[in-house]
């Protein structure tokens, strides 16, 4: 009992939270709800009209009256059809629109979740929250909930009509209903249990199949085809047996409906017979109406439990979705807020900066000062923390200790205090893998809708970074770049990334191992492009290539989360420390 009430409360809480998504469609919901009683009334009234024809018009032998009654019957049928169509359409419309809104909210939320969350949860899971979980809801919203409601109203009105016609006949014939409910519950429970087993067996078999097909080369070269197939046969047979057992219950549940109406009619006859014998008036029309009612009242009762299960699944989906929405995300950018970075020229400083992705620290007290307009190179082994510094500077990760302050006119602001969206207008990061949308070059450079002014700017930027010819070659800036830019080389993508920087004109640019995987043909272009992009900006280069590093005003060497050396290329080489060793090992191949 307490469990049931808890369930009800939590269901209520789920629904209340859901309402904002449905609210914009409340007109349609209202229309759908208003159509419901009309549907129910028409369903219940139809046999009554027929009863009238049989009991009044036929004995009277009045064809004109019969025609009138049949016209009324047709009108009722038409109203039922129309009301039902309107109801179904309105509620599905509301349901689908609601779900589309929910999906949009989930998507918008997920793309603003902290990257730590993405480190923890696989992208596939997030995808299925956004698509399959939401789809499950869609089914329920457009069918489940409201058909249950309609069924309930229809059942209630039929029962009411039957009792109004003849309470005793109604009572006896409907006595089957509770029996049916119990039988259906017992069977459904057994069936659900079997279906669970079926799904589990199927999951295991399909998982095995998928994996062995994925590793089919291994199966083949190790000559294990025969026993792999034998293993699959065992798993498949388990699934087969479970489904065959489930089939029996399923067939019984289905067949029950054919029998129950016959039994109900038999009860009707047994109950009515003594009355008729004592001369009490039971009209034929009444019997007709009862036969009609009894043929349609049991089906919704059977389907009730199935529909309830759908709703339960949807509730589970909804809970998972809410769980996702409850994760704190970055606030959406507020365009009106004052810019705390007005007067920022790219200078920043780190003081005792410490940070870790998990418990282990990746940065263990970094001190660094970069003056506006400087080009600073950061070098170090993989895992030394140099990329982490970049991620903190654009607030991809939060929660550092110590200070990371940006110099603005007349002082400095802590990175953690700058809204991420604002920060990223001023600080640009160019990663090694350039992300491209499957859209036009123009869109990818502008990263938004392209108006005439933006087109100009995009074209200028592409020319400036020497990417114009590569764009032209592919058909101009309105040509799509292909799925994830698969028609472009790594170097070409870099050029697009540089054009992005020019368009947005940030004061501080961070290149995160940006030129690590570039073929030598594009590299010279990139070098030239970099000159233009760097001009007048503060630049941090997290580097692999010596050519970039050599030209830097200063080189910082990271090792185990700290800066261990700083100076120019010449100074550091002369010192013969970590940098000199790195140069000897890592950078050598460029010479």
């Amino acid at each position, binding site marked *: 009992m307490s469990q049931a009430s808890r369930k009800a409360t939590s269901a209520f809480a789920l629904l209340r939270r859901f309402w904002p998504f449905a609210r914009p469609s409340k007109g349609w919901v209202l229309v759908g709800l208003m159509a419901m009683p009309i549907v129910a009334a028409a369903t219940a009234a139809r046999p009554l009209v027929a009863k009238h024809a049989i009991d009044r018009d036929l004995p009277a032998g009045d064809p004109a009256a019969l025609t009138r009654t049949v016209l009324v019957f047709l009108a009722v049928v038409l109203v039922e059809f129309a009301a039902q169509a309107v109801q179904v359409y309105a509620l*599905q419309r509301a349901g689908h629109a609601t779900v589309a809104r929910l999906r949009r909210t989930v998507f918008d939320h997920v*793309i603003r979740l902290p990257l730590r969350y993405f480190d923890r949860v696989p992208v596939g899971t997030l995808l299925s929250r956004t698509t399959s979980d939401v789809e499950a809801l869609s089914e329920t919203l457009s069918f489940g909930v409201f058909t249950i409601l309609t069924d309930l109203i229809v059942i209630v009105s039929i029962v009411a009509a039957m009792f109004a016609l003849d309470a005793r006949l109604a009572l006896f014939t409907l006595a089957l209903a509770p029996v049916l409910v119990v039988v259906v519950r017992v069977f459904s429970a057994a069936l659900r249990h079997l279906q669970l087993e079926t799904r589990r067996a199927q999951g295991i078999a399909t998982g095995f199949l998928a994996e062995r097909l994925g590793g089919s080369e291994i199966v083949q070269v190790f000559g294990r085809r025969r026993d792999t197939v034998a293993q699959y046969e065992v798993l498949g047979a388990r699934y087969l047996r479970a489904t065959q057992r489930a089939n*029996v219950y399923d067939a019984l549940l289905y067949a029950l409906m054919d029998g129950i109406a016959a039994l109900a009619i038999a009860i009707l006859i047994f109950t009515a017979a003594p009355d008729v014998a004592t001369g009490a008036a039971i009209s034929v029309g009444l019997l007709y109406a009862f036969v009609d009612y009894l043929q349609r009242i049991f089906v919704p009762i059977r389907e009730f439990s199935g529909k309830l299960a759908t709703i339960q699944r949807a509730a589970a989906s909804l809970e998972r979705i809410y769980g996702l929405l409850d994760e704190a995300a970055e606030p959406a950018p507020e365009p009106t807020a004052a810019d705390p970075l007005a007067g920022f020229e790219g200078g920043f400083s780190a003081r005792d900066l410490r940070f870790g992705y998990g418990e282990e620290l990746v940065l263990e007290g970094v001190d660094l000062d970069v003056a506006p307009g400087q080009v600073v190179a950061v070098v170090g*082994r993989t895992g030394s923390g140099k990329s982490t510094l970049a991620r903190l500077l654009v607030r991809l990760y939060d929660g550092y200790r110590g200070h990371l302050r940006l110099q603005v006119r007349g002082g400095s602001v802590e990175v953690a205090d700058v809204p991420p969206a604002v920060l990223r*207008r001023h600080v640009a990061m160019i990663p090694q893998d350039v992300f491209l949308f499957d859209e036009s070059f123009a869109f990818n450079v502008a990263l938004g809708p392209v108006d005439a002014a933006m087109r100009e700017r995009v074209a200028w930027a592409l020319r400036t970074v020497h990417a114009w010819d590569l764009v032209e070659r592919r058909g101009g800036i309105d040509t799509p770049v292909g799925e994830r830019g698969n028609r472009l080389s790594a170097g070409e993508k870099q050029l697009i990334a540089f054009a992005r920087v020019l368009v947005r004109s940030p004061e501080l640019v961070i290149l995160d191992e940006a030129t690590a995987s570039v073929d030598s043909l594009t590299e010279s272009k990139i070098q030239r492009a970099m000159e233009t992009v760097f001009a007048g900006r503060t630049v941090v280069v997290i580097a692999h290539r010596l050519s970039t590093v050599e030209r830097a005003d200063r080189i910082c060497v990271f090792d185990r989360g700290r800066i261990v050396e700083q100076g120019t290329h010449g100074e550091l080489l002369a010192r013969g420390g970590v940098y000199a060793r790195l140069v000897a*090992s890592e950078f050598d191949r460029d010479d």
Partner: protein
Amino acid sequence: MRERLADLAGPLARFYRGYVRRNVPSYVAGAVALVATNYAVVRIPKLAGEAVDLLGAGDRAAIAAARTTAWELVVLGVGIVLVRTLSRILFFNPARRVEYRVGVDVFAHLLAMPRTFLGRQNVGELVSLATNDATALRLLAGFASLQICNVAIAIPMHVVQMWRTHPQLTLACLVPVTLGALYMRHTIRRFYALVRRGMEFLARLSDRVLECYAGVGAIRVLGAERAALARFDERNDAYLDLQLRVASMRAFAMPVLGFSGLVGTAVVLWWGGRKVMAGELSVGDLVAFSALLLSLVSVLTSLAWVLASMSRGMASLRRIDALLGEPEVDEQRGEALVLSAPPSLSVRDLTFAYDETEPVLCGVSFDVPRGGTVGIVGSTGAGKTTLLSLIARVLEPPERTIFVDGRDVKSVRLADWRRAVAYVPQQPFLFSATIRDNILFGLPPEVDPASPEAARRLDRVIRLAALEDDLAAMPEGLDTVVGERGIMLSGGQRQRIALARALVRNAPILLLDDVLSAVDQGTEARLVEAIAGLHGASTAEAPTTVVVSHRTSVLEHADHIVVLDGGRVVEAGSHDELVRAGGLYAAIRAEQGRGEGSER
């Protein structure tokens, strides 16, 4: 439609012979059960009508007769539950077996397909063949067969029962119902087309979502959240529009058949009512008539659904038939090969191209002496992996290019060749199973995984592949489950388990494709020693080995090293010779030699 049926004749016939024929007795029994079911279905309204008339008459004899009728209804009511259940079991359970057999056959067939076929396929699509398409065939063999059988029995029985009551009335009320059924058929076809498009739209929406989730860091850094959302909206709205079209069909078009049944009932009331007034029919006949009509409508509804769903089953049938028609690799064809000792291998003027494109390998020749080791080195794309796949006969080499003990490997029975070779591919693919099972997967078929021999081999390869420390650190050691449902292994650990899996085979030929690329420096040295050690102790036992690597450090122990560049052998010789020669090998070595200590 007609010509499509014609070219379905072959697949249908094969499907029938291969899977359905053995179920025919069950179907016949099912059909008998369906006849019994439909007898009851049409008899129940008739009885209800008779009872109404009897009770309406109100005299004592009639009431007794009505009671008898009621008892008959009880019997029929119980009976119909039994025969209906039986008919469904008799059709559906054999169909489940069809699904199972098709799934197993497709899987077995796929595993016997050549790599050139499998390599081109998307795994998801192959899985779908063995699961979704098999399910579609099950529906064809079960649900569709049952429905068609049922319709074939039910429609005549309904019509006959109605006709016997009143032929003209039957015709009159069948008019709206027939029109409704025709409209339904048309509607369902459009409905399915829309649903399919809906699935496509959803897939496209998912693509877009996935694109953004995978690139979320970049999107944020670029401040492109709005642009991403706008792109999402585009597809989300398109999907919604489509769903609304489906919704309007569901609401307005699909219920038309049911509506036509009620219109038919109105006809029964009106026309039949007039006949009652004229004394040609009784009220009970009207009761029976309208009940039969509604029952007929439900039969027609399921017919319309079945007809529409058959096209899906036929598409699956075609796909599966086409797949099963593709020739398998015959592993038993060719001459027997029994190797009592490691053989010599030679590659002679091997040229190979995947398609009509440029050859990947061009005139490659080298020899591996009995129990010797040859190293293959070269940059990415030099053709190393292709060369090794050809030796392993993962890809079929051209005739007379690869020889084992002087015999063309092409002439050797593939099953025997598989037994002779232990091959470690570049991607260390492990199954979701325990580490023990993954390693023992490499055992030759004659060694029982539970035997002491297997245990001995397992111990040995764990040592050889330097896995002891890793296993000690794992929660359940050898019984730790790896892969999707288990723990995550590092690239190096996966590679070493894959290596152990090959070594446990004790095969006379060992082919290693860049198997140490993710292993750290110290372990690499240890493994190189171990592999060399296979050769050191007793040469008679040492497998004939070909090692591919892009790192020269792995190859220093090789007897002979072949340097590939652009598919050609550009240098060959021992490590020392090649270093002295100062060519490509020396250059690669110089480049890598100084990278020591860096993480990979």
